[in-house]
């Protein structure tokens, strides 16, 4: 219990300290030590509870409950004030609606209900704790060097103390979120992450940043509102706020649909599923470490975490399950398609995040053990690979002055290590035998077995599209531009170190995933489900995959770039200028040969895909919510 409190309170303390540290050197050390301690704490927690199964802590404290109430109310007031200041009506309206609901719930409804255990830690929480602790703190360390560079190009006051305060506060809230068993506590941390992301997205205070931060706030407040209603319904109809009890009821066949649909809806908003994906795309205006944090280890992962938690109560035939499956499936397909049309690397990454989260949400909706297995592995692999990719793009952006994939020609020659790191990240996202594909494979099987053929459609077409947009990016960065000199000495060593560690972690997880599966994921499933059938991948298959990963790591190290052959110019219709880039044109002048990638706007245009996604997902959501509303009315 002390460990969990430390996990929540230590980042909080570090955050508060960072708020008041103005000196660069002091901040450097504070962030590094803080990150190290957080990572160490999360590992110690993992080791301590590794074999303990689910451990519950009563942690009864009326004081904490009141403190949370006060803070929640204050956050609402703050949002209201900010809404007025920036003239954002929806924020004000939602704050006005939410405040009485919070007060009503906390002061009247929740009082009659005894919560047995406020905190809980099981293997799913452990997975999350490790992701937040290790990936999150690595991103914070990376942010040190990145933000120094960022500040140089920035006019006005140095607001880095505020930035690092938010980053660490975010980690603290995430630790609280994944270890809460009391739904009301979970809701509190949920709202804190909403607010943190709002401030982080709006960090630069440009018009665009403010606009996008409010969009994120509006959408997440909508989710928060649904969460709040779920709390109220849970209190009124089920007289319980213990998440584990609630899931137990659901898994035993009690009808908890009213609450779970609302919770899934909240999860969908936070996980940036369509129609809410635009807030995550808009979050790009923030400095890169923010995007990395939002996309990999925090925020969106909170949404899928909640949905995976609820998985045992879902399935085809269950309204909440259908909601998650359909929204997740549609989002996976259409967001993957939209990624094709993007040349901005960060937007490609963002759409891929949205798509992969869709896959996890759908896995949670299916709710079978094999689906949840796939979902948890997806969550882990995605956290590592995506943070790596975001940080690589961030570094590339500072070096080449662009985040456009078209400008990444010759990256392999100019920034050999950075390009290789990026290539590892990309391969890990879509290629066999690396992790994401393994999980997608398991997801494919779970989708086929889920009780409706519809889901096959999403994953089959979605996978084909995924292959396309990652490969074309990979092809762009590995293209050899002859004569290019390495410019890598300009890359800050600190950034390369963080990237290198993430590459190490990605490869380690790809090599060790059978162990993670058998020691962490399968025991979690056995505890959650009565019976766990055969996994999608048999043991020999996993072994083969691991051997393939090892071979794919070793082969380039041993053989890449070693050839005794004579190097000759490429074919440029016989009119080479000698440098493989220029040819002699019809006017006998040198001209550069350049080639752009395919974006297929006519097929996969972003607007078209998003419009389709928004319409389809809205129909599903409205259908599910109106059924719940009908249920409530009938009940009353």
């Amino acid at each position, binding site marked *: 219990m002390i460990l969990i409190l430390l996990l929540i309170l230590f980042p909080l303390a570090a955050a508060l300290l960072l708020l008041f540290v103005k000196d660069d050197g002091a901040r450097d050390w504070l962030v590094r030590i803080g990150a190290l301690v957080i990572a160490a704490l999360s590992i110690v927690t993992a080791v301590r509870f590794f074999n303990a199964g689910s451990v519950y802590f009563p942690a009864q404290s009326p004081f904490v409950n009141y403190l949370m109430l006060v803070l929640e109310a204050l956050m609402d007031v703050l949002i209201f004030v900010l809404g007025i200041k920036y003239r954002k009506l929806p924020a004000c309206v939602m704050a006005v609606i939410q405040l009485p609901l919070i007060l009503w719930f906390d002061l009247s409804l929740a009082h009659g209900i005894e919560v047995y255990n406020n905190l809980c830690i099981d293997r799913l929480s452990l997975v999350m704790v490790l992701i937040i602790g290790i990936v999150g703190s690595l991103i914070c360390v990376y942010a040190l060097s990145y933000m120094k560079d960022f500040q140089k190009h920035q006019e006005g006051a140095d607001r880095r103390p505020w930035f690092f305060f938010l980053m660490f506060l975010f980690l603290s809230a995430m630790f609280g979120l994944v270890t809460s068993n009391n739904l009301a506590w979970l809701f509190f941390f949920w709202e804190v992450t909403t607010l943190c992301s709002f401030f982080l997205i709006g960090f630069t205070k440009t018009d665009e940043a403010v606009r996008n931060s409010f969009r994120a706030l509006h959408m997440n407040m909508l989710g928060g509102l649904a969460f709040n209603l779920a709390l109220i319904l849970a209190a009124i109809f089920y007289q319980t706020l213990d998440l584990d009890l609630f899931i137990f009821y659901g898994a035993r066949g009690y009808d908890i649909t009213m609450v779970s649909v609302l919770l899934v809806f909240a999860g969908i908003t936070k996980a940036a599923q369509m129609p809410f994906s635009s807030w995550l795309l808009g979050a790009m205006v923030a400095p890169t470490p923010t995007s990395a944090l939002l996309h990999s280890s925090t925020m969106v992962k909170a949404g899928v975490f909640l949905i995976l938690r609820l998985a045992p109560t879902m399935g085809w035939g269950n309204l909440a399950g259908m909601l998650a499956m359909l929204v997740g499936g549609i989002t996976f397909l259409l967001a993957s398609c939209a990624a094709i049309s993007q040349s901005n690397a960060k937007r490609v990454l963002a759409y891929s995040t949205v798509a992969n989260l869709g896959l996890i949400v759908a896995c949670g909706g299916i709710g079978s053990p094999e689906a949840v297995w796939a979902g948890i592995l997806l969550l882990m692999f995605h956290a590592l690979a995506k943070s790596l990719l975001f940080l690589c793009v961030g570094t590339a952006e500072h070096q080449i002055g662009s985040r456009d994939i078209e400008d990444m020609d010759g990256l392999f020659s100019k920034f050999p290590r950075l390009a290789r790191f990026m290539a590892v990240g990309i391969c890990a996202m879509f290629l066999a035998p690396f992790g994401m594909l393994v999980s997608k494979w398991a997801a494919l099987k779970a989708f086929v077995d889920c009780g409706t053929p519809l889901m096959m459609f999403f994953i089959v077409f979605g996978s084909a599209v995924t*292959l396309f947009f990652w490969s074309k990016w990979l*092809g762009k960065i590995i*293209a050899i531009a002859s004569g290019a000199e390495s410019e890598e000495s300009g890359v800050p060593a600190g950034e390369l170190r963080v990237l290198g560690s993430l590459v190490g972690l990605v490869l380690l997880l790809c090599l060790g995933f059978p162990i993670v599966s058998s020691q962490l994921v399968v025991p979690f499933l056995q505890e959650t489900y009565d019976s766990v059938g055969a996994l999608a991948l048999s043991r020999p298959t996993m072994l083969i995959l691991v051997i393939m990963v090892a071979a794919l790591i070793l082969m380039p190290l041993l053989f890449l770039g070693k050839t005794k052959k004579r190097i000759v110019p490429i074919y440029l219709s016989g009119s080479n200028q000698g440098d493989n880039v220029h040819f002699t044109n019809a006017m006998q002048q040198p001209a550069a040969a350049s080639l752009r990638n395919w974006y297929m706007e006519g097929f996969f245009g972003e607007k078209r895909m998003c419009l389709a996604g928004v319409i389809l997902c809205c129909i599903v959501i409205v259908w599910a919510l109106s059924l719940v509303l009908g249920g409530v009315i009938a009940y009353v």
Partner: protein
Amino acid sequence: MSNGILSTVIMVICYLVLAPFVGGLLAGLDRKFSARLQGRVGPPVLQPFYDVLKLREKEAITVNKVQDFYVLCFFLCMLLTGAFFFGGADLLLALFTLTLAGVFLVLAAYSSGSPYAQIGAERELLSMMAYEPMVLFSAIGFYLFAGSFSVSEILHTPGIAPIAYLPLVFLGFLYILPMKLRKSPFDLSTSHHAHQELVKGLSTEFSGSTLALMEVAHWYENVFLLGFIALFFAGSHWWTVLIAVIIAIVCYFLEVLVDNSAARMKWQFALKSAWFLALILGFVNLVVLYYL
């Protein structure tokens, strides 16, 4: 059990040793057949082997230091794909390894930095995106048929052959087969026919032993694809396997016939039609099977 392992090992070794001969021979027959269709005498049936041997004698040149490595990986992954398939392992494992092989080939072309090769690479990627859904639907069809993705279990499912349940899926697969074989009308990325190409597309920058390696890998790939077709028709009796192999070879020459009688289609048509048919033939067949 040990018997099973032994037969697996024998099958894998047979594939690794015999596939290039079978593949090369098929390529030779393909050229002979094509020539006769065009009213020519055509090269000797063993010409593909002579070509490969001759390519190995060429001067060792390359356009950069990494391209050959990718082609080597392409080759190895192709061996692995067939080994998984003929060894009776998981069908999806074989297909994902095939995808990996395809990506390596595309990377080899991209890495050259040559505009012609890169256009070929992009077109190859497009073809992959076009045929991937139908291939996955086929694999899922086998799974719904046998209750398992394992090739050996699909083969040993008692009763009637998979084709009885997957007729539309099979038609869909036949439609995308030219893309996989890189034959007309879908030889978008690189073509064997001189009249189709200004420059050699994907393989523009491959030369000498690297080109030979790609050619041999292609033979391995063809044998694997024929095996995939045969899986539709094979049952647990040995004679059904024989029939299946004959049908697969007939299908191959059917594709050669199409290859010689069709011009290259635009990529838009390739993508649209492949996806449309995957939906109409593949998905619809599976939905019916799902509720059967």
